[in-house]
């Protein structure tokens, strides 16, 4: 049997993606536009957009690198069909290597005809999400058909993570500086990730808020106290720390 190859191994792609976003920002605070630009360069696509979505019909495109990207987003919203909507609904990537394929035509009959007429031949929608917290999607398009290779898929996923980290940092209330290390350190890169998700669910009940706000409060608390997010989450899960709706501060 031929040697088996691990899927998406090697160095941590998330850290690599940040480096690439940093090259785009050239020292300026990180923004969604830098994530989009890095995705275009590194995944080898023609355009990228990040769209914020709160439901399949309520969304706002934060940034698009080109007019075609913007049109693709607008058309999907108008028509109520397309890869972005499916990525949002199913909670996984929707990778369309050929918009003229019978499968794509059957799935989104009106939208793909439209996309194809505008010179788009491949589309890749990556959800920007943390479990049930759906923020939106990173959408890539290309004027030539063809699959992403496994490295390009890894990179596209890592850029969607970067967009997610940026949006979460912004949701904390604008305290972040936009510097790479600031946003990076607000994430948890340890083995405690399961506890961060569990703590999100617990804080949601404690405060009577959405999962998105619960996660923001956890992250903001960790940041204010200069503690790793995973450690704060563990305190919540082990019931040493509670969030009280009457306090700005937990405890």
């Amino acid at each position, binding site marked *: 049997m031929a040697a*088996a190859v*691990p899927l998406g191994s090697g*160095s941590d792609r998330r850290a690599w993606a940040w480096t690439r976003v940093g090259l785009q920002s050239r020292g300026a605070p990180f923004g969604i536009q830098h994530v989009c630009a890095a995705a275009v360069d590194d995944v080898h696509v023609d355009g990228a957009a990040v769209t914020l979505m709160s439901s399949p019909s309520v969304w706002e495109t934060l940034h698009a690198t080109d007019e075609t990207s913007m049109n693709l987003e607008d058309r999907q919203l108008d028509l109520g069909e397309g890869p972005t909507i499916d990525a949002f609904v199913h909670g996984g*990537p929707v*990778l369309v290597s050929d918009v003229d394929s019978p499968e794509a035509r059957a799935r989104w009959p009106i939208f793909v005809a439209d996309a194809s007429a505008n010179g788009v031949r491949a589309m890749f929608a990556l959800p920007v999400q943390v*479990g049930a917290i759906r923020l939106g999607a990173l959408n890539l398009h290309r004027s030539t058909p063809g699959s992403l290779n*496994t490295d390009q*898929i890894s990179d596209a996923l890592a850029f969607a993570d970067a967009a997610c980290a940026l949006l979460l940092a912004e949701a904390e209330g604008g305290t972040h500086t936009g510097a790479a290390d600031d946003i990076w350190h607000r994430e948890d890169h340890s083995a405690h*990730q399961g506890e961060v998700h569990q703590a999100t669910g617990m804080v949601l009940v404690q405060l009577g808020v959405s999962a998105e706000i619960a996660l923001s409060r956890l992250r903001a608390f960790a940041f204010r106290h200069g503690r790793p997010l995973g450690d704060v989450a563990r305190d919540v899960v082990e019931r040493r720390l509670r969030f009280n709706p009457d306090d700005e501060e937990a405890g």
Partner: protein
Amino acid sequence: MRDQILAETFVELADTLVDDFDVVDFLHQVSMRCVKVLGVAAIGILLTDQRGRLQVMAASSERSRLLELFQIQTNQGPCAEAFHTGRAIAVPDLAEAADRWPRFTSHALNEGFVATHALPMRLRATVIGTLNLFHTEKGLLPEETLRVAQALADVATIGLLQARAIRHHETLAEQLQTALNSRVIIEQAKGVVAERHGLGMDEAFDRLRGAARSGSRRLSELARAVVEGTGRV
């Protein structure tokens, strides 16, 4: 005796695969069955996140310390090694592996585990994750038991990826990523249920799973409804 348990296991898993099944629930069943069939102390199923890390998808117990033991192996430990090499890794005495994986071995020994096996989960030439077995007695599993374990790892892979549908690595990525996100939703829902009813995380998981079964709902769908506030458990 084992032949009968094994036959029951494959019948049960095949039954699950026929329906519109839930991936997290299916892998949980595989890990519970593995404990019984293989006579080991604990089981974990880890999948690649396609960005250079392994993530815990299912375990024979939802005890937090156990989940962490699997998760520590993101980049060091027998699972990481089985994943990167595509070969089964056997550690008959964890105490002797302390130099190789210091953090992992100390955590495992603290939990009372003294030996471990990690088996690759493969789809043709691609490794997508690992099945991790823990033992409370030193030594290697018999060759025959390991073959059964590998068969169960293969069943888990096929079930997870609905292999007939996998023609392109794009479909593989779509299904893997959806499954990984479902697992995150379950963790969030465990938190909601644990807080609401004053339960531990393992009890919260049982309660969620029980509610999904009795209401004939998919576990991930119910978990999402619980986190979004449109369903109550």
